[in-house]
């Protein structure tokens, strides 16, 4: 098994493009090493991207935030200004696994592991995050909701890596939040995940919103009907009910050991509502 740690994006892309056998990108390793250990994957080449400065940086860009694909959850939590601007994204990344896992796990890895139950993905989608990919044909941008196509299926072409994520500028009175349901208090894979980002106008009415649900379909969903249900409202009881109905309607989950279709659908509705309320509260006090 080869291990390479290129110091440039071009270097990583070249290695991955030229790879004949199974090649894997290594960021935090909190999924890859577990899968290698379980003999789910046996890469011939591991490309560690952590020496590429771009993947490790958190910088302000055009009023928004650019987060490198290999920045860890723990580092995001320690970034005071990012946390203030995007508390939902940061809290989502810090629900992944444990303190130890958060010390290594990254947004890029969480997305590219291709699990529809990934915790940070609904928060990124709700935030309107755009992933910057780099490949043999150069760079391109993809909204995060278009990166994961299904379980373990990504829109990345051979040789492509996710370099960073761009979070858009935050209008005043905006906030986001993320909630998930798990059977215990920590460590579990999300049974349902809900990310909501919203903006209030001067009168406290929701002027813009994005709602994303995880673990209730083959990919993480951007539920525009759920956003439409609450835009123009102050999240009064009627708007909450419309939100729940829209969340319910968007769910296409499976029965599995973590939850039944019925359970997930019910919980998705509840979480969408609770997450929206938290985001609203944060936006009011922001």
């Amino acid at each position: 098994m080869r291990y390479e740690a290129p110091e440039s994006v071009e270097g990583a892309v070249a290695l991955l493009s030229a790879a004949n056998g199974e090649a894997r990108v290594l960021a935090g390793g909190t999924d890859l090493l577990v899968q290698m250990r379980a003999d789910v994957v046996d890469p011939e080449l591991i490309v560690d991207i952590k020496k590429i400065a771009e993947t490790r940086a958190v910088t302000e860009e055009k009023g928004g935030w650019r987060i490198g694909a290999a920045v860890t959850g723990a580092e995001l939590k320690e970034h005071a200004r990012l946390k203030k601007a995007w508390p939902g994204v940061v809290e989502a990344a810090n629900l992944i696994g444990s303190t130890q896992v958060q010390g290594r796990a990254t947004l890029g890895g969480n997305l590219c592991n291709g699990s529809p139950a990934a915790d940070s993905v609904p928060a990124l989608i709700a935030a309107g995050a755009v992933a910057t990919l780099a490949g043999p044909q150069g760079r391109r941008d993809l909204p995060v909701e278009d990166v994961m196509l299904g379980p373990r299926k990504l829109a990345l072409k051979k040789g492509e890596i996710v370099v960073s994520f761009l979070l858009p500028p935050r209008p005043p009175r905006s906030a986001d939040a993320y909630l998930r349901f798990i059977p215990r208090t920590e460590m579990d894979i999300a049974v349902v995940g809900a990310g909501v980002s919203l903006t209030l106008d001067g009168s406290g009415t929701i002027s813009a919103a994005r709602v994303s649900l995880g673990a209730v379909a083959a990919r993480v969903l951007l539920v525009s009907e759920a956003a439409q249900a609450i835009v123009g409202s102050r999240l009064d009881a009627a708007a909450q009910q419309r939100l729940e109905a829209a969340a319910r309607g968007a769910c296409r989950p499976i029965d599995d050991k973590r939850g039944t279709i019925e359970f997930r659908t019910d919980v998705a509705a509840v979480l969408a509502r609770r997450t929206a309320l938290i985001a609203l509260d944060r936006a009011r006090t922001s």
Partner: protein
Amino acid sequence: MAKHHIEAVVNGDAVEFLCETEETLLDVLRDTLNLTGSKEGCGSGDCGACSVTLDGRLVCSCLVLGCEVDGRRIETIEGMAKGEALHPLQQRFLEHAALQCGICTPGFLVASKALLERTPDPSEHEIRFWLAGNLCRCTGYDKIVSAVQDAAATMRKG
């Protein structure tokens, strides 16, 4: 592929070792460096028995490859006591009977130390959530939490 030649600092000492790509930091610590204090409980990052700090960051050493730590600073349970002088956490764990079989204990101590370095006065809630990635089959956790609280108080007194 030829083995990787790695230089790192472990518990303040410069070390040098060879490792295969697939060897984890835990494998290297236990099998190559003979630092068996970090334990393998699950091999999948769920139990925390292999906890170490990497450049001051609490991680599971079973989720880090040996070849990733070139030039890095690692702290393990073996570095916690200063000679025969126990760290306050170690002392309080003993006094509070926060261990029985002891296999989770190194992981809990390393994790607790990382917590107290960041948060010298953690609430019980903060302690429990920080330590959620460390599993114990023997004690029921309560005595561990008490020991951490007591050690935190001791360390705050300086």
